Each structure stands twice: as structure tokens, then as C-alpha cells.
């Protein structure tokens, strides 16, 4: 609960886009910093002008005029390492779904950020789950390559922060085999040819030539990744497919990879750790849902962390409308052996590192003020959010869902239909 100088609703009400950020003191019985400072008891986080100024104990001076928020827990804003929030309003309605383009001739060049809609209702719902940044990946359809992913804030503001071309997303394993023509050998041939196309750009295209698999625009878009300057996110699950990827990574040491899925990653954990390849996983996965996930177990996260593999935990069951359930997934990972602190890092520090987001995912002086106050343990399913700050601005805790809820709290229509009730 918020013990306050001003209520959270009032904080939300004073918000105007672009207004000068206020000074806030966010107090928590427990303040998890994500740094070597660990978890502070009765901690205080001072926010001013978009940045964290101080992180300290109960004696931390609160600047005059600061708005005070008090909660059970305070953490950095969570970062979803893999989502589709903001590019799909309603999955089944093609006109509202900008995640894939089966009829486009392009692939790597498809920039998911061109489809990002900050007004998307799921952006607001995600923010209300304490998630302040989302890495968003397109869905592959033309070939192995889905296109360019981005990282955005969840403020829902048109002028919100967006980091484009944060990664190239591609699919290997069974999915990649299907996209490349029907087999894993076809997928590997396509990947190698695509890297060659990028490295031959612009030369072979300049004289009217074509690439082996990529159009001119796609080859151009793959150049940074082919030079090791842009991360390549690869969806792969089985130990065999992950070993094949690591063989490739070893033969191409300049390239930067991270794995998405990685259901059997625990079987090759030591090699992943040695190659410093992070795994973005949904640790709920524990069924042989396909022949590439036979050894899936909820202990995957714990085993990977123990081996020293950087992990980011996400909800892959619905990465669009319920990306926020990453906390529940992480809590279950703890119930299956993952250290609680590691679980928190998998939602904050590690995704920030994967995407090179310096100054995010931690509560530290000078860091960007993405801060969340919770009414309990953030990984607990019964916990809710008390306050969310993005770049130092208190965020509205309303969404289309909360408006529907408030309209239908009463079903009384004795005077007028519910449609006249606007929360």
C-alpha cells in the first residue's frame, strides 16, 4: 500500500507529457538494487530529473517538496527480454497485427519498430505489471530472418524512448527448418549464404547482381550483425541445435549471439557459459511439446544459472498480452531451484546487459529512473504494483482493463445503462 504525501492516483493525475519530472522519494521495506548493495531494509530511492540520485537506508534525507511513495518492495523497472507487446493489438485480427508479413519480399530489413504502437492496450497492461522496458521481436515468415527488433519503454507516450535495431531475430531448429525450405540443412545453408550476402554488400548488388538469399535491402540490414556490431537472437531449443549454433559461433567468433527458447540448454550449459551466450527462456517449459524439447524441465533456469550462463526469464506462452507474467515464471523458477536474487537479475540486470542498455535494470546513483514499487515480493503471484516510474516520471496505473473493471464493479442499471459510467 502507498503511504503517501500524494496518492498514486494523484501522481498519475498530475502527469502531463513532457512536463518537468518531479522529485520523488520511493521508500520500500525492501529495496532490491540489482547491484552489489544487495537488498536494503527500509531503503529509500531518490529520483530527480529522470535519474536516480540516491539509493540508501532509512536515514537517507528526503529533499524538500519531494513526493513520497512507500511500499513493501522497490525494484528497478523490469525489462522483458522478449516480447511482441506493442506490435499486436489483437493477434487474430490481421489489420492490427504487425508482427509478420508473409507476403513481403523482405526479411532482415523488416524493422519491427515501424510497427510499434505506443497506444497499444497491451503496452499499458504490461506497464501495470511493473515492466518498464520491452524488447520486441518480429515473427519470421519470409525466411529464417524475422527482421530487426527494438527496445522501447512502456510509457505509452508517442514520444517515448525507443532503441531501434537492437537485434536481428531469427529462427533455427524445427521452425527454421520449415522457413528455409524444409530441413535443418536448408536452414544452415540459408544462414551461411545470408551472412555471405551481407559481407558482399554493397559490391555484388551495386552492379545489378542479386544475393544468394537476401535482397539488397536485407543484405544491407544484416551488415551490422554480420560484422558483430549487432546482436543476433536465435530461437533454438534442442541440445543438438544449440551445439550446431555453438559450432557456428566458434567458427565465426566475431558474431554476437543470444538464444531464445533454449528448452534443452541445460544439457549444454557449460559450453554456453564458456562462449558467454545468454539464454532468454520461459522456464515453465517442461513438456516434450516437440521433438526438439524432449528434455525440457522447469529446472532449466536454475541449472543454467549454476553453470554461469546469463539468463533472462520471459513469458513465451503469451509474450504479447501477458509479457508481464515474467514475474510468475521467474517465481516458479525459484520454486524449481533458482536463487531468488538470480531470478530478479533475469528480469532486470541481465536483459539490460544483453541489449547493452547501460544504466538500466539497477537502482544506483546516476541510473535511469525506471523504478517500481510493489505491495509484496515482486515474484509472488498475489503481489500487485503500487507505483511505476519511467525515466523519473510517475506513470498512470490505468489501462483499458482497469476502466472496464471499474465500469462493471456494479451491474446496477436501474437509472441508466452501464455505458454512461466512465471511471
Amino acid at each position: 500500500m502507498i503511504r503517501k504525501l500524494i496518492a498514486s492516483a494523484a501522481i498519475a493525475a498530475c502527469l502531463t507529457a513532457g512536463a518537468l519530472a518531479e522529485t520523488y522519494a520511493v521508500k520500500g521495506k525492501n529495496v532490491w538494487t540489482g547491484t552489489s548493495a544487495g537488498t536494503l531494509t527500509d531503503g529509500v530511492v531518490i529520483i530527480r530529473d529522470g535519474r536516480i540520485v540516491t539509493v540508501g537506508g532509512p536515514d537517507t534525507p528526503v529533499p524538500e517538496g519531494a513526493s513520497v511513495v512507500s511500499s513493501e518492495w522497490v525494484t528497478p523497472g523490469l525489462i522483458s527480454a522478449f516480447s511482441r507487446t506493442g506490435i499486436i493489438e489483437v493477434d487474430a485480427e490481421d489489420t492490427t497485427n504487425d508482427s509478420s508479413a508473409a507476403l513481403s519480399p523482405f526479411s532482415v530489413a523488416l524493422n519491427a519498430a515501424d510497427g510499434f504502437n505506443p497506444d497499444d492496450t497491451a503496452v499499458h497492461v504490461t506497464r501495470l505489471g511493473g515492466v518498464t522496458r520491452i524488447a520486441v521481436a518480429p515473427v519470421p515468415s519470409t525466411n529464417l530472418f524475422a527482421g530487426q527488433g527494438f527496445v522501447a519503454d512502456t510509457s505509452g507516450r508517442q514520444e517515448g524512448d525507443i532503441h531501434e535495431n537492437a537485434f536481428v531475430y531469427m529462427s533455427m531448429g524445427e521452425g527454421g527448418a520449415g522457413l528455409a525450405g524444409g530441413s535443418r540443412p536448408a536452414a544452415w545453408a540459408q544462414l551461411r549464404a545470408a551472412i555471405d550476402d551481407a559481407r558482399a554488400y554493397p559490391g555484388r548488388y551495386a552492379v545489378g547482381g542479386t544475393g544468394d538469399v537476401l535482397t539488397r535491402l536485407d543484405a544491407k540490414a544484416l551488415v551490422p550483425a554480420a560484422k558483430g556490431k549487432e546482436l543476433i537472437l536465435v530461437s533454438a531449443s534442442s541440445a543438438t541445435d544449440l551445439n550446431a549454433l555453438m559450432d557456428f559461433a566458434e567458427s565465426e567468433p566475431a558474431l554476437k549471439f543470444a538464444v531464445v527458447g533454449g528448452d534443452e540448454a541445460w544439457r549444454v550449459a557449460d559450453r554456453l557459459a564458456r562462449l558467454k551466450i545468454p539464454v532468454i527462456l520461459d522456464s515453465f517449459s517442461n513438456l516434450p511439446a516437440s521433438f526438439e524439447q524432449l528434455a525440457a524441465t522447469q529446472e532449466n533456469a536454475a541449472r543454467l544459472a549454476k553453470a554461469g550462463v546469463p539468463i533472462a526469464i520471459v513469458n513465451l506462452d503469451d509474450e504479447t498480452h501477458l509479457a508481464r507474467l515474467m514475474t510468475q515464471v521467474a517465481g516458479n523458477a525459484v520454486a524449481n531451484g533458482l536463487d531468488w536474487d538470480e531470478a530478479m537479475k533475469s528480469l532486470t540486470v541481465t536483459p539490460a546487459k544483453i541489449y547493452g542498455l547501460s544504466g538500466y535494470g539497477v537502482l544506483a546513483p546516476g541510473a535511469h529512473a525506471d523504478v517500481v514499487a510493489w505491495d509484496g515480493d515482486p515474484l509472488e503471484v498475489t503481489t500487485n504494483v503500487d507505483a511505476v516510474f519511467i525515466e523519473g516520471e510517475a506513470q498512470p496505473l490505468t489501462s483499458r482493463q482497469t476502466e472496464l473493471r471499474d465500469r462493471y464493479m456494479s451491474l446496477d442499471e436501474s437509472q441508466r445503462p452501464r455505458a454512461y459510467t466512465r471511471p
Partner: protein
Amino acid sequence: MKPWNWAALAAAALLTVASACGGPKPDKKAFTKDEPFPANPYPSTYVAFPNPPVLITHATILDGEGARIEDGSLLLQDGKVVAIGKDVEAPEGATVIDAAGRWVTPGIIDNHSHLGVYPSPGVSALQDGNEISGPVTSEVWAEHGVWPQDPGFGRARAGGVTSLQILPGSANLFGGRGVTVKNVPSRTVQGMKFPGAPYTLKMACGENPKRVYGYGNGAIPGGSPFSRMGNMAGYRAAWIKAAAYKKKWDKYAAEGGEAPARDLQLDTLAGVLSGEILVHMHCYRADEMAQIMDMSKEFGYKVTAFHHAVESYKIADKLAAYGACSSMWADWWGFKMEAYDGIPENIALVQKAGACVIVHSDSEMGIQRLNQEAAKAWADGRKAGIDIPEEVAWEWLSLNPAKSLGIDSKTGSLRPGKMGDVVLWSGNPFSVYTKADQVYVDGALMYDRNDPAYRAVSDFELGQPGEGDMK
């Protein structure tokens, strides 16, 4: 003359099962007009496994009927709940478990699962959950598509699920019969079937039927139904046929003569009209549920439960008045238009209105954590000012689904005399950190988190990477 009805047939069939227990005996009985054909040709062969007495002590017990007992004891004997309370004596030879700090609840019952019909691995050869060939397929029975080796059954057991309803999918207006099973490993589906559970009928509203049939095969219009109007017309046309069919059989039962020709499709629908088969209907939108309730009155049957029901909160008063359960997710929304208005407080708002609440999964993942789904809904309600005691919320997971499946006199709560379907949790099951330590089905220990000897491994997982691992 006694009127012919499906209840009599079911009762006769149960007697047949009982007599068959003595050994295989070809049934040479000539069918009479009172039992013109076998009503239960695929009977349950489930028998409880050995179940020595177990006394669980010092536990926090939620009895599943709204009561909580602190520092309580629960005695299971001969497969039944025998005693529950503060002081329960251990009978001779009973295993006594000190459950201090742990919780005990009735086993979870998921009334919406596709385990076995859409099993893992999800390869094309094992997709047996939807007879998509036509909008009316009430002739198909889910049990004929259930693959008992689906590893998902074991995962659900580890999540405390002791019974479940397996339903056909939701492409069709009438999808077919569902089957209720006890969650025990078995070589056959008959070995899982819940003894005496009534049959159910899966129906579907809204987008799915019109998308699959109207927009199917790449041609527009692909066929009927093409719209929600077509959905309603399709149901009504089928009910009219079913009523005529039932009338013929009722006449035959009353007057004899030549038996009418059987129609498998109409057998099921007539079973609904005679009240023997329970209707479980996939329906998202409030306005559609209201139409369906009217239609059920038009033809004289009852919808037992609306499934998914993401807009139940908008008509919770009408659902309470009608008496249908809403079988809901905690928070799924947005994946299609009819799910667009889903809110996390749906469950709590339906409870607040006094209507019947069920938490269901419709997911091989969700079924493993239905306690957490209930916990989320409970907490979202609390945040909105709707305070529901945990012991009441547990009814969403056991007693209410049991009612919706017609098995609440046998299971779904810890009332003495009921089946010993019980979960011993490592702590408060409304916490993300809590796991099922032990799961009992009819008093027999069928899962023990700490003992590999009580963790079944399906045939499919034998000899594969990860065999027998902690999952």
C-alpha cells in the same frame, strides 16, 4: 410403462460394469425397448490403487466447502476421506504424516483440458482433438481420441490435478462428447474414466465456428456458419432434429414396435434434452452467453458451464439467476476480438455476484499451476476491494468444477465419505513458491515430489533425453 430414458440406460450400463468385474463374460443379452442399445459401450475399468490408511496431521486444511482448519488432521482410509478435524486418531497401521507448515486441499479438478487429444509432442499425427470436418459433430467422443501416454497427464498430477474433463476442441458448433477422467497413469483411456461420471457435450459460440467453416478452405463463403447468425441457426436446427429424434425414441419406449434408426449425432443431443448429458459451452462474449441462455430455454435444456467466459463479469447477475457456472482463466485476454475485454478481475466479480466460479486451464501448461491461477484472481479481487477468503476461493478449483461435471457427490471436497482425492502442499498453495508434495487419488499415493518411485514416466518419455528428470 416406464418411459425410456438415458438415465435408465446409464444405470443399466453401470450394473453391467459391476457384473463384468468378475471376469470377461460375453454379453449375450438381447436388448429390449427399455435398453435398445448399449448406452455405455466403453465403460470405465478404473479401480482405485492400493490405499493403506494415511493420517495427515498438523496441516492447514481447506476442506473445499468453504472451511479452513488450522493445525488439522485428515484421515484417508479405504480410498475415502474418513475423518477431518482437529483431533483424529490414527487407525492401526496408518502412515502418519506430520504436515506442520504445510497445507492440504481437495485435489484440483480441471474441467477444461485437451490432454490426450492434443498431447505432447504436438506433432500432426497426434492432433485428435477436433473433428473439424463439419460444424455439427456431436457424434464424436473425446475419449476415442485420448492418447493415455500424453506426458501432460503426469505434469498435471504434479500440479495437484486429480480429475479432469477432456473436451473436444472448439471449431464446431457441436464439438462432441467430453470425458471425465481420474488423473492416473493408464494403458487405456477406459482405465482412467471416472466411474459413473455423466457424459458432457462441448459446444462453441462466436468466432471459432464462423472462422473455421465460413472462412474455411480459402473460399468466402466457405460454408455455414459464416456469421454469428449462422451459429445460432445451426444450433437451433440441430436441436429441432434432436427433439424429433427423442420423440421417436420416447414413443418407442412407451409403445414398443419397430425401433427407430439410430443416429449417433442425435443420440448425444437427445441425451442433453433428457438431462443426462451436461452442456459445456465455449463462449467469450456476454451478449452471446445471454443469447445461448435464451436458446437453452427455447429447447428445454440447461447450459451447465460457459467456458472461457471472459466477459462473464458484465452479466454476472444474469448468470447467477440462470445458474450457469463460468469456467475462466485468471488473466488471458486480447488474442482475438472476443477475448479483447478480458480483465484480471473477471473471476472475483463473478464470485461477488454470487454466480458459480470455476478456474480452468485449457492449457497443458496452465493445468500444472491452477492453484496459482486462482491465487492471481484472488489477489486481483482483493486489490479491487473484493475480499474472498482463500477457503472459499478453493471451491473454484475443486467443488465447483466437480459440480459442473456431475461428480460432486463423489469428490471435490474433503467431506467424509468422498473419494480420497487430496493434495498435500509444501506450503500455502496461493504462493508461487509452493509445490505439491504428495497427490492422492482415491487414497492412493500417485505422486510424491521427493520419491522417484512415485513419479510416473510415460511410455513416450522412456529412452528419451530427460527421462525421469525432475520436470
